């Protein structure tokens, strides 16, 4: 079963997407966890989280983006330019961060240079950077604008009833992922961090109904597993990571990643959508309200609290704070986390990296090993 998750999380056009397309159905990609999947699900469209995974260079990305830009959107554009996203019928860009929001123009420009590079439906979804009554209203209107555009382009109708069904389905998924998260934090977690990321990532690339079935089976099996013992328990936080290989490198033989705070990770499924109220409003409220991303400025204390709670709950031995170069949002917040968590006696390690093929494996491995060594020495002294 884990094989299914790995396949779905390590191949862009995976078998679920292929089958979906074979059935004549549409797929719309999006770049940020602030986009409500439920809208697409309600329209009978497969929401697909756009990734940069698998890009082996950034020549196309570098043609459009400037040099001081995060390599994640460059890799996304690279894949688009290479035709790897040709299965997408649409794409949604958000102002998740400045590098990511400029993917909008760069992709459009690439699309005007080379035919077929850009999907026919291309939408900029403006997500505010703060949580207040008027910002929720903005996002609600923006979601209505998105719904109208989807309806018009794909000639579908998204009703409140459909939206409520989708919300229910995704909420069930979130509940399952909460159970999954609880297993992950056991003293003897039944699966590795690499496997955990594969399970979570798969949810962003396959139909939700099938995902829930697989997830139920996976959890049932995991609950009976004896678990993995004797490893240093790590938490991984920071910039987006959609590469299970990165976690594998960090875990090695000595460690296990038992918690994360990544937007491709646990941030993606935290919080339920209220099923009672107006569905568009409730979706907007939930998606804007999960302020775990540093793009929501001025909310550091809340994020620190969440992180500290996770550290305690998962009995974390050390936190790895990684950021992709030029990701100032996570990079700087990692600096604050490091200061405040170290003050509480929690060992932290900051790591800057490039997104993309794991060309820095040796350097990363050496640093993580040294960090694990530090944790072990600390334990021995204690």
């Amino acid at each position: 079963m884990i094989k299914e998750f790995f396949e779905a999380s390590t191949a862009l056009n995976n078998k679920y997407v292929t089958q979906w397309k074979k059935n004549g159905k549409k797929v719309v990609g999006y770049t940020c966890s602030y986009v409500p999947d439920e809208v697409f699900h309600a329209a009978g469209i497969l929401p697909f989280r756009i990734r940069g995974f698998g890009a082996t260079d950034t020549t196309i990305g570098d043609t459009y983006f400037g040099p001081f830009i995060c390599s994640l959107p460059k890799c996304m554009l690279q894949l688009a330019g290479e035709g790897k996203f040709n299965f997408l019928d649409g794409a949604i860009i958000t102002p998740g961060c400045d590098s990511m929001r400029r993917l909008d123009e760069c992709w459009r420009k690439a699309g005007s240079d080379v035919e077929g590079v850009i999907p026919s439906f291309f939408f900029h979804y403006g997500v505010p950077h703060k949580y207040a009554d008027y910002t929720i209203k903005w996002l609600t209107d923006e979601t209505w604008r998105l719904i109208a555009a989807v309806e018009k382009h794909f000639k579908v109708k998204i009703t409140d009833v459909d939206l409520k069904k989708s919300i229910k389905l995704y909420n069930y998924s979130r509940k399952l992922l909460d159970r999954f998260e609880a297993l992950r934090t056991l003293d003897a977690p039944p699966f590795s961090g690499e496997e955990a990321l594969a399970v979570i990532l798969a949810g962003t690339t396959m139909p939700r109904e099938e995902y829930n079935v697989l997830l139920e089976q996976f959890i049932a099996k995991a609950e009976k597993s004896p678990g993995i013992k004797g490893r240093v328990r790590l938490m991984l936080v920071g910039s987006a990571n959609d590469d299970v290989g990165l976690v594998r490198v960090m875990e090695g033989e000595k460690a296990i990643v038992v918690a994360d705070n990544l937007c491709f990770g646990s941030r993606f499924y935290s919080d339920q959508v209220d099923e009672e109220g107006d569905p568009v409003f409730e979706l907007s409220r939930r998606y804007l309200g999960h302020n775990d991303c540093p793009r929501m400025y001025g909310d550091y204390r809340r994020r620190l609290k969440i992180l500290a709670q996770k550290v305690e709950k998962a009995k974390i031995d050390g936190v790895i704070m990684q950021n992709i170069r030029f990701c100032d949002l996570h990079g700087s917040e990692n600096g604050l986390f490091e200061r405040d968590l170290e003050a509480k006696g929690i060992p932290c390690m900051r790591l800057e990296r490039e997104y993309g093929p794991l060309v820095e494996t040796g350097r990363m491995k050496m640093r993580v090993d040294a960090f694990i060594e530090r944790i072990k020495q600390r334990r021995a002294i204690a």
Partner: protein
Amino acid sequence: MRNETREYKFDWMLWNTFAAASRLKNGTQKEYQAMLKYIPYFKRIMETLLGTGEPGQKFIEICSKYLENLVFAKEKGKKTAITTFCFSPAIFYAMDIIPICLEVLTVMMTFMYKRGTAEFLDYCNEVGSTETSCSSQRGAIGAYLAGIGADIDMFVTDTPGVCDTNANAFSFASAYLNKPFFQLDMPPDLTGERSNEYHREDFKALICFLEGQTGKRLDPERLKENLRELAKQDEIIAELEDLARIVPSPVPVLYNLMVSASKFLFAGMPEGTSLLESMLRIARENAAKNISGLSGGVEKLRAFFCYIDHYAQNMQFWQMLDGNGICYQGNILSHFWSNNAPHVAYYHKEEVAYTIDMTDIDSLIDSLAMINSRMPMIKSIRGPYDAPNMWLEDTLGLAKLYSADLIVYNGTPGCRNTWGMVKLLARDTEKAGYPTYIMYADAFDVRVQSWEATEERFMEFLKVRRLV
């Protein structure tokens, strides 16, 4: 950071530097000349500024006054707010809060001191901020993070939705220093009822925040007075911009910096107006005589900078332009969007301009919200660069209006926003017939690329493109 650097409050040092500079011309010319040999590090910057006559003197004086205000704010019982250049300080002055504009302080230190802000830039990294963050904020904020600046009460920015690294610097510093934080968030669209309402509600929330921090209610009469002065400043700027369209331009190259300074330091305050009036007098005189504002008197080229200046020590950037007969047609920072600005009339962009309406408190707040949402950078680079009213349209519009021969981009490696699409912009401006040069320097940190290398590459571009 060196121990010596920690010996004095950095803003107190800077104030003393400007205060001393403002008195240099108090004596005779002979005394001034005699004094210059005792200030070798400051000789060139003094000559550059004071060489512009009265406006240069007034510029130094308002910088000194601004610094004095922030250094002695606490002694006078006033609150201080760290803010950003693209946030109109009008609301702070109306609420008796002393604004501390990070980028302005960084610029002052960069062009004034030989060492620039290097130690403060690096200090930010030492305490956790990324080295790739924008140097315009890091330069001054490093000093505050190190505890060698005036006491701060709050952080207020308006760049979320416009510039991540700017907003992030404020968010980081407020968390680091555990001070209250407020952000005005900018939606991707500038115009339309949705955006207007958003700006309005956000600004009302700001006023609530400021009232909470100061314990005082917003005084509409004081705000009116402030906005009246702001309208006066806008009229002067509009006339200066009109004059700059004349060939040869009667406006000296340094005036663009002084226009920005007057608005960023003293929007709606008489100090800013006084500087602008002085500039206008000279520009009018030059226009009446039909002479160029360039010191050489011959205008060879007209350059429009689509982003920002370069603030290397001694204002070498402006010296280079002036020395080479290049008329500087301003940049994104020196063009404002009041309804009387020539570019507003010329391009029929009334809906993007702001109007100052003092009918009642609601219209006053609306006016402030509109002013802020149309500040340089906030207006032009919030949405897709090629969307209506955004960067491409503004760049081409201004370049055409001012008869520019070329367009130049200069910024900082920290600017994720513009580096995300400047190559696309350059393609479009080249296509529109403007030779476009992208500088790879850091406007605030010559350690990234020395000024000499920056100048050489720029001049090489002019030669290669047969512009000189």
